[in-house]
């Protein structure tokens, strides 16, 4: 078990280092001079050169990379070129929206998908399965912003239960903040739940054909007990894989939903930073997301070992 853990940890760290190099290199080769951007088109070449020196942009590549990485460790991501505030403050503010949003959406998606998958797999080929999988097919096919618009129409415009958009900030109290995250979370969760339900179903169907399911039935366990006690845990590995991928997506790929609901999330921050060539923000957020994805993958890898004892004893 320790070997497995250490090995996974080493792989995660190596990936992180490699990713940081790629992120740094890509932004180096992109056109656009940050100093020139900050000073505007009318600045003289001397002024630009001065600022470049101040910002350390003229230092050798390796040195700048090391400086940047060192900064990451002390949470000093540099200053945004456009907002002139520390990047960390921007990120922290946006993360306070994006992280809870992603977690709520992920929880919702799991809560919907696993029971639907169990239901469908246990009624394979029958009416219930067909209806559930038809709905899932629809959920995969329909884009999430359409769900978002429908939800706004029903719950915000029509029933007036929740706000149609915007985010009051956590300072306004936990409930109002949560309330404004509810619809976007549902809109994000539905398509994810549809995918997850299909994966759960097919993983379960495969497991239900295994010999040990028959052994469990021959013990006298009713079908339902066999499903929960024997099949579900064995079907968890593909489900966990998809969950890991979905979390990464939910953290960063929510820009459309953020726009529909006017949420100040990470996705919009990145989008704005890219259009304004605020490269230091792009760099930092991308690095942050890479780290988050790697961390989630590590957690997924470790949870495999929790689920399956064979992975624990193998090297």
């Amino acid at each position, binding site marked *: 078990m*320790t070997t497995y853990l250490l090995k996974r940890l080493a792989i995660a760290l190596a990936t992180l280092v490699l990713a940081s190099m790629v992120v740094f290199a890509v932004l180096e080769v992109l056109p656009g001079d940050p100093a020139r951007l900050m000073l505007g088109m009318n600045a003289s070449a001397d002024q630009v050169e001065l600022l470049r020196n101040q910002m350390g942009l003229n230092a050798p590549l390796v040195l700048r990379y090391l400086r940047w990485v060192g900064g990451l460790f002390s949470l000093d991501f540099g200053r945004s070129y456009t907002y002139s505030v520390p990047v960390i403050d921007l990120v922290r503010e946006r993360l306070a929206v994006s992280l809870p949003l992603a977690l709520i959406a992920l929880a919702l998606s799991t809560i919907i998908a696993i029971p639907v998958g169990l239901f469908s797999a246990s009624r394979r080929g029958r009416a219930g399965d067909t209806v559930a999988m038809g709905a899932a097919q629809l959920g995969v096919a329909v884009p999430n912003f359409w769900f978002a618009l429908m939800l706004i129409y029903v719950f915000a415009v029509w029933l007036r239960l929740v706000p149609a958009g915007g985010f009051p900030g956590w300072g306004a109290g936990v409930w109002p903040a949560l309330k404004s995250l509810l619809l976007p979370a549902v809109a994000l969760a539905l398509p994810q739940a549809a995918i997850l339900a299909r994966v759960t179903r097919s993983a379960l169907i495969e497991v239900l054909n295994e010999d040990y399911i028959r052994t469990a039935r021959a*013990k006298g366990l009713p079908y339902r007990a066999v499903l929960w006690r024997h099949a579900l845990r*064995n079907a968890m590995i593909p489900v966990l894989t998809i969950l890991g991928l979905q979390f990464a997506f939910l953290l960063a790929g929510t820009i459309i939903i953020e726009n529909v609901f006017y949420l100040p999330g990470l996705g919009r921050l990145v989008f704005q930073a890219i259009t304004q060539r605020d490269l230091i923000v792009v760099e930092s957020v991308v690095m942050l997301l890479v780290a988050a994805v790697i961390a989630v993958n590590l957690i997924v890898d470790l949870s495999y070992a929790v*689920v399956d004892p064979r992975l624990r004893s193998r090297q």
Partner: protein
Amino acid sequence: MSLLEIDNLSLTIGDTPILKDMELSVAPSEVMGLVGESGSGKSMTALTVMRLLPHAARATGRISFDGIDILAATEDQMCALRGDDIGMVFQEPMTALNPVKTIGEQVAEGIRWHTKASRAEAEDRARKMLDRVGLPSAKFPLSRYPHELSGGQRQRVVIAIACALKPKLLIADEPTTALDVVLQAQILDLLRDLVAESRMGLLLISHDLAVVTEMADRITILRRGEVMEAGDTARTLSEQSHPYTRQLAQASMHVPARARPHGAGSGQALLQVESVTRDYPGRRTSLLWRAPDIRAVDDVSLSIAPGRSIALVGRSGCGKSTLARMILALDRPTSGTIRFRGETITGKSEAELKPARRDMQVVFQDPYGSFDPRQRVEKLVAEPLHLLEKKPTRAERREMVAHALHEVGLDQRDMDKYPHEFSGGQRQRLSIARAIITRPKLVVADEPVSALDVSIRAQILDLFAELNQKLGIAYLFITHDLTVARAITDEVLVMHDGMIVERGKTNEVFDHPRSEAAQALVTAAPDLHRAIARRMQEQG
């Protein structure tokens, strides 16, 4: 008074009839043997009694167990019976246990479910049951996982699950088919003891007539869903009054007719293996440390003359297959050399090995898994032709495939079919056609008939014998089935713990085994003649 009584049972799945007017009964403390070839409906009979049939199955007739009408019982009543009054053991021990639960959990689960015992009580009973089936607590604590056990040990766990609540009836569906003969004998002994201990009825399902004869008081012979003959084991098999019974008995003792092999013992050896050893790195115990190397093959030397047929026998895990892989140059020995037609093949590159590969082909055990299901027979059988010096044209290729198919008794029109259109026996013929298409000098056959029914097995053995005579191919037969080894080989090598512990003429070695390993194999191997004789003697 019968414990289980099956009357007029008919079963269809979808539109396919599976069983027709099936009759069978098992009395308390009686062993009933149910014999038949694959597809005869043996397993479906068992699943009908357990009411674990697929959804599309429809059963009519009557099954009464201990006064309960099984076909009319509710699902709740069946759940109460399964695992409590009726236990079941399956064929494949490697997959019959849930890989993510400990063996303790799995044995205790049924006990807790049926008796509402507390966890501690159930675990206590599970412990006693595991002790009883030969898995003592010192080596097999409840916290073991299935993957930490061997096939034979896992089958003991499955038996412990099935017998934990002292069922009145135990159904064992091919319980030893996946095990080597020594393990088979141990598991059969265990089942016999459990029957004697608790007056349990045993329905033993097997395709192996010898195993059933050794075990069963009465026997039912099934063919295509119909009972051919049923009755006292000794009488049924000694009289063999029903033609199908006779056919089965003869097929399971079949010995192909072979004239003496040509060129035996003279001239240069075709294959020479000299002091070959293969070590595998030991299991990693931590980041820096490994257990010592595992020696799978230990200083093995052997030689095969052209046209000879040699058996390599031994228990599972003794290193037979590793040795075969090295001979086929699919694996490299740690030390030692292998010479084929006088040339060293160890340490050669793939390109240098090409001529050797042409003269050396292989037939595997599983006729289902060894073909790509999406390719036509022509392409599958022609596969080894890329080893030829000159690439044959398309017409030549078709010609060669047609010839090979003809030689193995298939039609040349079969060339355009896909593997799933063939039965198991026909597929094994395809594997053989693929092996002989390059006119090899040596064919290595790894358990080539153990997945086949007895009558098909007899035909395939005949085919091997015929090709040996006609084409002068030498064989290395890897098997744990001594009947097969006796039927088709001139010499035998007995392997144990990576070493060859005995060698000689096949009949001499099996009639008078000297080494402990060979003796164990011979004693454990089921033999129909011997089993019938013993039955007759017991009954006077």
